[in-house]
């Protein structure tokens, strides 16, 4: 029997007296919590069916591009081509094989070879993200491409290579347009995007993925973030995206860029885990048993092993759209498809918004922890920004997050995060002071630079970007309460309050927002993007 009342859209349900408790992500575990009557729960849309023949769709897109000649018509023997691809910061978790990047690369390389193009380099456009391990690269591009190209002609962008960058000019706002030298000196750059969320792709690809610290300073700063409404609405009022667009347009005046963008559905859970994407009121007895079994197993398993298991279960994402050609028309088409999959109509803002934080973020694929800064960026940077129009929570409202907030860092991947979190944040949480007083020190620290260049570490400045990324959420919400933190100091350093249970957190939030405060929970993941009326 369905006990929850449907509201605006089928994905939005309201908790009734007899509603089932809801499942929330809680790091490498789950919470099962009763919600107050009247709470809205927003569910993701059902996955759009994948294209039946993704390889044929990619070939079709290359031969029917938007705004330019078909790719084969642009190829000549002897030309210099650079293919750029995104790294494993998306999709999350990693998708089942073959990865869409593998399919795109195999098709592109075959097409280039057929046209006598031999000087081809494949660059993983990591900007200041960490370099991937050889095994991670192989999983992403497939064994054939890996065997034939790694590491000579398949490699990571190195934003700290002293001879590896060129400056193409400055935008009218004075933003330096700096990109990878090999890409800049190519006759053709083919950027093959995997658009996991609406923030991906567009002019951000070349302008961010192939640039360096000097290039990123233009938009990865507290000012640009505070002037950005939603990161997930590139067509909305966002200084971040305006800067990407200015940089990308100037780059394309100098470069011949051919873009391929792909949208995936939200089939994050498959097989025995599929029930996690369902409305709890619709659970069968089997689903309930599966969840109890999962909870019992997780309770008996150490955290490190739970992470390993979660990381190794791939998502069943499928290709739902692919377009190729000039950046802007291609991105517009992909955005439409992306919103079709993620956007859910919601009537009105909430006073109190609840998000469960999962074990993963774009910056900790295969890391040993979702460290406190990444918990912060998930809550205030990503989940808060999953809206179009108006934020889902009112200005000055309360954001409730569920996560253990363990003080654990992967020091191979995030060495400078430790210093930022434990030395800088206790001194000040002001992002503007961070940018003025500390940013350059972190960006130029030789140990962090070498770990980025020769190891698998995020660039030294990256933790500051993570803090900036949470800046518009931090400026908007009145309070953040974290449920289930296993220590007191991490929430204190982040400036958050603690609660032992969700019920306690809601009571604390109501004491701020009033007894009649509207409570909304977003049932992520998969991704839900709220179209707030």
């Amino acid at each position, binding site marked *: 029997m369905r006990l929850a009342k449907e509201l605006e859209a089928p994905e939005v349900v309201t908790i009734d007296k007899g509603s089932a408790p809801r499942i929330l992500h809680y790091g490498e575990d789950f919470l099962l919590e009763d919600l107050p009557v009247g709470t809205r729960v927003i569910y993701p849309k059902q996955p759009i069916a994948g294209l039946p023949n993704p390889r044929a769709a990619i070939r079709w897109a290359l031969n029917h591009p938007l705004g330019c000649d078909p790719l084969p018509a642009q190829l000549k023997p002897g030309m210099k081509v650079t293919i750029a691809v995104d790294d494993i910061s998306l999709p999350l978790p990693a998708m089942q094989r073959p990865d869409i990047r593998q399919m795109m690369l195999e098709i592109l390389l075959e097409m280039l070879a057929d046209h006598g193009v031999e000087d081809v380099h494949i660059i993983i456009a990591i900007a200041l993200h960490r370099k991937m391990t050889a095994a991670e690269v192989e999983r992403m591009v497939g064994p054939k491409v890996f065997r034939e190209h790694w590491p000579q002609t398949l490699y990571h962008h190195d934003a700290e290579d*002293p001879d590896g960058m060129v400056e193409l000019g400055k935008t009218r706002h004075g933003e330096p347009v700096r990109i990878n030298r090999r890409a800049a000196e190519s006759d053709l750059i083919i950027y093959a995007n995997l658009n996991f969320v609406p923030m991906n792709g567009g002019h951000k690809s070349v302008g961010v993925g192939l640039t360096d610290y000097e290039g990123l300073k233009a938009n990865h700063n507290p000012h640009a973030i505070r002037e950005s409404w939603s990161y997930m609405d590139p067509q909305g009022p966002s200084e971040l995206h305006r800067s990407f667009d200015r940089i990308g347009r100037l780059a394309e005046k100098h470069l011949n860029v051919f873009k391929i963008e792909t949208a995936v559905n939200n089939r994050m859970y498959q097989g025995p885990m599929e029930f996690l994407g369902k409305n709890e009121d619709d659970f069968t007895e089997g689903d309930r048993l599966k969840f109890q079994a999962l909870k019992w197993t997780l309770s008996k398993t150490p955290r490190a092993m739970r992470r390993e298991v979660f990381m190794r279960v791939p998502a069943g994402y499928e290709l739902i759209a692919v377009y190729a050609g000039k950046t802007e028309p291609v991105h517009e088409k992909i955005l439409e498809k992306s919103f079709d999959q993620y956007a859910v109509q919601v009537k009105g803002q909430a006073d109190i918004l609840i998000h469960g934080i999962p074990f993963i973020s774009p910056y900790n694929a295969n890391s040993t922890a979702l460290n406190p800064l990444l918990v912060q960026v998930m809550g205030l940077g990503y989940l808060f920004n999953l809206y179009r129009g108006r934020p889902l929570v009112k200005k000055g409202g309360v954001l409730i997050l569920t996560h253990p907030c363990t003080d654990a*860092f992967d*020091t*191979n991947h995030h*060495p*400078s995060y*430790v*210093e930022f979190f*434990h030395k800088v944040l206790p001194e000040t949480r002001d992002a503007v002071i961070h940018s003025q007083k500390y940013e350059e*020190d972190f960006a*130029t*620290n*030789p*140990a*962090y*630079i*070498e*770990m980025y*260049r*020769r*190891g698998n*570490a995020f660039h030294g400045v990256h933790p500051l970007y993570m803090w900036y990324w949470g800046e518009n959420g931090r400026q908007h919400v009145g309070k953040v309460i974290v449920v289930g933190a296993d220590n007191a100091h991490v929430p204190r350093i982040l400036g958050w309050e603690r609660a032992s249970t969700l019920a306690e957190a809601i009571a604390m939030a109501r004491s701020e927002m009033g007894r009649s405060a509207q409570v909304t929970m977003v049932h992520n993941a998969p991704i839900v993007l709220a179209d707030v009326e």
Partner: protein
Amino acid sequence: MHAHTHEDDSALGQEQGRAQEKAKETPQAQERARGQRGLSVRDGMAGAHDDAGEGMDAAPEGAAHTKGRLEALQDARLPAYPPAGAKLPGHARLPTSKLAEEMSPRDQAKRATSRAAAFYDVDGTLVSTNVVHAFGYYAANRGRLVESAVRTAAVVAGIPVFWMADQVSRALFNELFYKQYKGISHDRLVALSEELFEKVLKPAIYPGAMDMVQRCRETGARQVIVTGAIDHTILPLARYFGMDDVIANRLEFVDGVATGRVIKPLIAGATKAAAVRDFCTAEDLDLAASYGFCDSYADYSMLAVVGRPTAVNPDFRLRSFARSHDWPVVDLR
């Protein structure tokens, strides 16, 4: 300990006298003189150091044939002996390197205002060789064939002993090890040092070491090598990396011949930390803003005293220690 004679005491007296005279000149000098008086033990060491320096300057009889080359080397590449501008035992200030001169105006400006230093261990951190390897080179180039063979054999035979000593204490290792230098003439060591650099050290520099040092120089930090190796061995390498200063062990010489003793304090293990601290005090540098780069657990104390420690190519123990302290770990190999 053995080098500390009545001559040292007189040198100490002279040095204190000089410092007191200077103290009358400026407040900064007064401060410096106070610092020197405060370092009574170290003053004694400095006296011994100066004595040894004087000993080195006197050309030994048997070394006349290399004198011209020695002078040329000293003039062209090496700092004067005893080093000018040195404030601490084992410290040599190098002339401004080309690498520093070629820095961008922005980096030059940073350098002018920075109060940070970067302290580098050498063996295993910047180069893959070690002091045993370097001495092996000296031993194998003793001039006479028989002597060369005997020395080389002695080094090889001593390896297990050195290894065991190193496990107990880096200071014990160095003390035992440097006895092997007994009888080698000073000019011979200096003359061989360039050759040693070209043939042994330069090919052993880790890929990425120069990049790392260059990045560090760009932050404005003063570049300092702190090593348990002897100064002759390390100076050409220091020049190559564009270092500003070297803190290294110095052999005691009598009549231009090594006694097999090192002028105290021995730079090794915990005394590296003391040397780093004293250097920062003497040069008015900020220890908390300074960098440290080491490869071995034996040097962890040097990493522990700086604000920005980094384990470079660390051994197992240092790697574990670095992990437990969340220090950056860099692999330059």
